[in-house]
C-alpha cells in the first residue's frame, strides 16, 4: 500500500520564500539595487568634489601643449607637443620594453628551465639557485638595483667604458654605432623580403616532399643562406651604400649613434631576468608533464635525442606551457608600469606627470585602465586562439 505524503498546511505559505528560483531573483535584485546605490553615490560625490576643486572633466586637455620633455621616444616629440602625443609616446615605450622583454625572458626562461632538468649536476644546481633567488625578491627592488646600484654606478661620459665595436657605456646610457642607409640600399631591402618569401615557399615544398617521398631537405641551412646571402648580393651589386654613424664624445656627452637610456636598460634587465625565473619553472613543469614513455617510445623508433626533444617532447609540453606562459607575458607587460619608479617614460610614468600637471585624475587613470585592459584582453584572445590550434585533438 503506497503512503501518500501530505505536506503540513503552513509550508504552502512558506514555499514562496523557500523557492530557490524566487530567492535567487530576490538576491540578484538586492545586488543590483546595492550596486546602483553605490554607483549613484560615487558619481554624485565625484561631481560635487570636482566642482569644488574647479576641475573641468573631459578629454579636452589632451590637445594642450605638454611642456615637458621625454628622454626616449619612438615618434617625434618635443616640449611643444600635446599631452595626447605624450601619452602615445608613453604607450609606444611600454610596448617596446614589453616586446623586447618578452623575447629575452622567453629565451632565458627556456634555457634555464631546460638547464634545471639537465643530467649535469652543476648546471641544474645553478638553474635551481637562480630560480629560487630571483623569484623571491621583489621586482621593484631588482629594478632599483639595476638602475641605482649598477647602471648609475658606471663612469661618467669622459671615462666611458669602451667595448669592442665602438660601443660606449657610461652613466648616460649605452651608445652604439648606427647603420645609415643611403639611397640605393633599397635593393638589399627588397632582396631580404624576397629571401623571406622564398624561405616560406621552400619550407612548404620540403614539407610536402617529405610527406610524399620521405626525403628530407636541409631547410634551416638553406634559409640561413638565403636570408644572409641575398641581401649581401644586393649590397655588393649596389656597392655598399651603407654608412655607419659612430657615437662620439662632444662636450659632456656622446652625440650620434644609437643611444639606449639606462632607464630602459635597467627596466628591461630586471623585467626579463625576473620573468625568466617564472618561465623557467613553467617550462620545467611542462616538460615533466610529458610522460617518460614518450621519450622511450621515440628512442625505440630509433629517433635520436635531439629530434626526440624537438619533435616529440616540446610539442606536447607546449600544450601545458602555453596557458601559464601567456599570463607571464601579461604580467611582464603590466609590470613594465613599474617604470614610473625610475622615470622610464612609459604610459604610467608619462600619465603620472600629466596627472600632476593637470589634475585630471579620472581621465588619466581611465586611459591607463582601458589601455592595459585591452592589452590583456588582446593577448589572451590571441593566446586562446593559439592554444586551440595547439590543443590535443581527441575523438
Amino acid at each position, binding site marked *: 500500500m503506497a503512503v501518500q505524503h501530505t505536506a503540513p498546511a*503552513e*509550508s504552502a*505559505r*512558506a514555499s514562496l*520564500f*523557500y523557492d530557490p528560483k524566487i530567492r*535567487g531573483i530576490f*538576491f*540578484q535584485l538586492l*545586488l*543590483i539595487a546595492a*550596486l546602483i546605490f553605490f554607483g549613484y*553615490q*560615487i558619481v554624485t*560625490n*565625484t561631481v*560635487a*568634489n*570636482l566642482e*569644488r576643486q574647479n576641475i573641468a572633466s573631459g578629454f579636452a586637455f589632451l590637445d594642450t601643449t605638454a611642456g615637458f620633455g621625454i628622454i626616449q621616444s619612438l615618434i617625434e616629440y618635443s616640449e611643444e607637443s600635446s599631452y595626447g602625443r605624450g601619452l602615445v609616446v608613453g604607450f609606444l615605450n611600454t610596448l617596446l620594453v614589453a616586446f623586447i622583454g618578452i623575447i629575452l625572458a622567453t629565451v632565458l626562461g627556456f634555457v634555464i628551465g631546460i638547464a634545471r632538468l*639537465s*643530467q*649535469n*649536476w*652543476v*648546471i641544474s*644546481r*645553478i638553474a635551481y639557485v637562480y630560480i*629560487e*633567488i630571483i*623569484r*623571491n*625578491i*621583489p*621586482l*621593484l*627592488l631588482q629594478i*632599483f*638595483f639595476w638602475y*641605482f*646600484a649598477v647602471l648609475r*654606478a658606471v663612469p661618467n661620459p669622459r671615462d666611458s667604458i669602451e667595448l669592442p665595436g665602438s660601443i660606449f657605456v657610461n652613466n648616460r646610457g649605452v651608445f652604439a654605432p648606427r647603420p645609415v642607409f643611403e639611397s640605393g640600399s633599397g635593393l638589399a631591402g627588397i632582396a631580404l623580403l624576397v629571401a623571406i618569401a622564398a624561405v616560406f615557399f621552400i619550407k612548404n615544398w620540403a614539407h610536402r616532399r617529405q610527406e610524399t617521398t620521405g626525403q628530407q631537405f636541409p631547410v634551416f641551412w638553406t634559409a640561413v643562406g638565403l636570408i644572409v646571402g641575398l641581401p649581401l648580393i644586393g649590397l655588393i651589386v649596389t656597392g655598399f651604400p651603407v654608412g655607419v654613424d659612430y657615437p662620439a664624445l662632444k662636450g659632456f656627452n656622446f652625440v650620434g649613434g644609437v643611444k639606449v637610456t639606462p632607464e630602459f636598460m635597467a627596466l628591461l634587465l630586471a623585467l626579463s631576468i625576473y620573468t625568466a625565473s617564472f618561465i623557467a619553472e613553467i617550462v620545467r613543469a611542462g616538460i615533466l608533464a610529458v610522460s617518460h614513455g614518450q621519450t622511450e617510445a621515440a628512442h625505440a623508433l630509433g629517433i635520436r635525442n635531439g629530434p626526440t626533444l624537438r619533435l616529440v617532447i616540446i610539442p606536447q609540453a607546449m600544450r601545458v606551457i602555453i596557458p601559464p606562459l601567456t599570463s607571464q607575458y601579461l604580467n611582464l607587460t*603590466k*609590470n613594465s*608600469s*613599474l617604470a*614610473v*619608479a625610475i622615470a622610464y617614460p612609459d604610459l*604610467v610614468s608619462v600619465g*603620472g606627470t600629466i*596627472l600632476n600637471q593637470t589634475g585630471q*585624475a*579620472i581621465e588619466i*587613470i581611465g586611459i*591607463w*585602465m582601458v589601455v*592595459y*585592459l585591452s592589452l*590583456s*584582453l588582446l593577448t589572451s584572445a590571441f593566446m586562446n586562439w593559439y592554444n586551440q590550434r595547439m590543443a590535443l585533438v581527441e575523438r
Partner: protein
Amino acid sequence: MSTTDYAYVRTEMADEVPPPASEVGVLGWLHKNLFSSWSNTLLTLIGIYIVWLLVPPVIEFAFVNAVWTGENREACLAPPDSNVHMGACWAYVKAYLPQFIYGRYPDAERWRVNLVFFLFAIGLVPMLMPRVPFKRANIIYMLGAFPVVGFILLTGGDFDLSGFVFSESTASFWIEYLILTVVLAGVAFGIAKAGATDPKPMVISVLAGMAVIAAVLFLVSVDFGLAVVETEVWGGLLVTLVIAITGIVASLPLGIAFALGRRSKLPIIRLVSIIFIEFWRGVPLITVLFMSSVMLPLFLPEGVTFDKLLRALIGVALFAAAYMAEVVRGGLQAIPKGQYEGAQALGLGYWKMMGLIVLPQALKLVIPGIVNTFIGLFKDTTLVLIIGLFDLLGQVQSSYTDPTWSTPTQSHTGYMFAALVFWVFCFSMSRYSIYMEKRLHTGHRR
C-alpha cells in the same frame, strides 16, 4: 632415465666482484653526473666557470671586504690613493636598522610595535605547527583578538566615534547604534516569521553580531592612555608586514566569495563577479594604487577622509582578492561533479554543501596557488613606495639621501639587506607551502 652430469655447469656461486670504481662512490657520482660524455664535461666546466665568476666576488663583497663597525661614512670609504675595493658597509645597516624596522615611529612608543610583533608570533607559530592542539582557539585569537589588540597598540586607539557616519557626539552614536540593532533584529524577526521558522536563533545571531561589533568599536574608542601614532610616521618592515598580512587576511575570504560568485548559477551575480575579477586582473597594481590614492578621495562625500595607508590597503586587498578568486576557482573546477551531487543528495543546502564538502577539498588542492598569491602580494607591498608610503624598500631607498653614510657601496649594501629580508620571508613561505602540500596530500596518493 639417468641424470647426466654436465661438467660445464657451475654448482657453486661465483664470488661477488665489487662494482667498477667508476660506477660507485664519489668517483661514480662524478662520472655519472658531471663527466658522462664530452658535452657533459664541457657543460660542467662552463657551470664551474659561471660559479667562479659570480660567487667569489659576492662573498668578497659581503664578508671578506665588508665593514662591520663604524660611526659614519669614513669607516666605509676606501683610504685615499689606494685601489682597495671596499665591501659591504654593514655598519650603515646597523645604524639604520631601527628605521628599517619601525620607520619614523616615535622612539618611546616602539615597545608597542615590538609587542605586536610578539603577539603575532605567539599566535602564528603554534598555528603553523600541525601537532599543536587548540587550533580553533588559535584561529579565534589570530582573526578576532589579535587584530583588535594590534590595531589599538599600533594606532593608540582612542578613536572619536562622533565623527563616524552620521552622528554628532559619542552618546548619539551609541543611541543610533542601539536603534540600528533593534531595527535589524526586527527585520530578522520578520524574515523568520515570513519563512515560518522559529525566529529565536535568527534574532539571537543578529544581536550577537551587533554586540561583537559594539565591543570592538567600544574598545577602539576607549582611551588606554597610549599616545596616538599617525600612520604617516609608520614605516619600514612594520608597514610591509601590516599591508601584507591585512592583504592576505582580507583577500582570502573575498577571493573565495568571488570564486563562488563566478561559479554561481545566478546570471547577475556571475556577471558581476566576472567583471570584478577580470577588471582587477587586467590592470597593473600601480594603477590600482594610484586609483586608491588619487581617485578614492574624489568618490567620498565632502569631509570624509581616509587614511593613506588604509587606502593602499583597500587597493592591495581588492587586487589580491581577484587573483585569489581565480586560484580558488581552479580548485572548485577540479572537484568532481559527484561531490556536489552527493552533497545535494544528502539534503545539504548551498552554503553547507560548499562549506562542508566542496571548499575543504578545493582549498586543499590549491594550497600552492594560494601561497603563491601570498608571496606575490608580499613582494607587491614594495609598490606602495610609489604613492609615498615608506615600506622596507622605501626606507632603504630614502636612507640614501643621508650624507652621513653616503659611500659608493651604500646602495649595494642597502639593496642586499632588503633583498635578504624579502627573500627570507618569501622563501620560507614557499617551503612551508611545500610541507603543507605534502601533509595534506592524503586523498589522491597512489
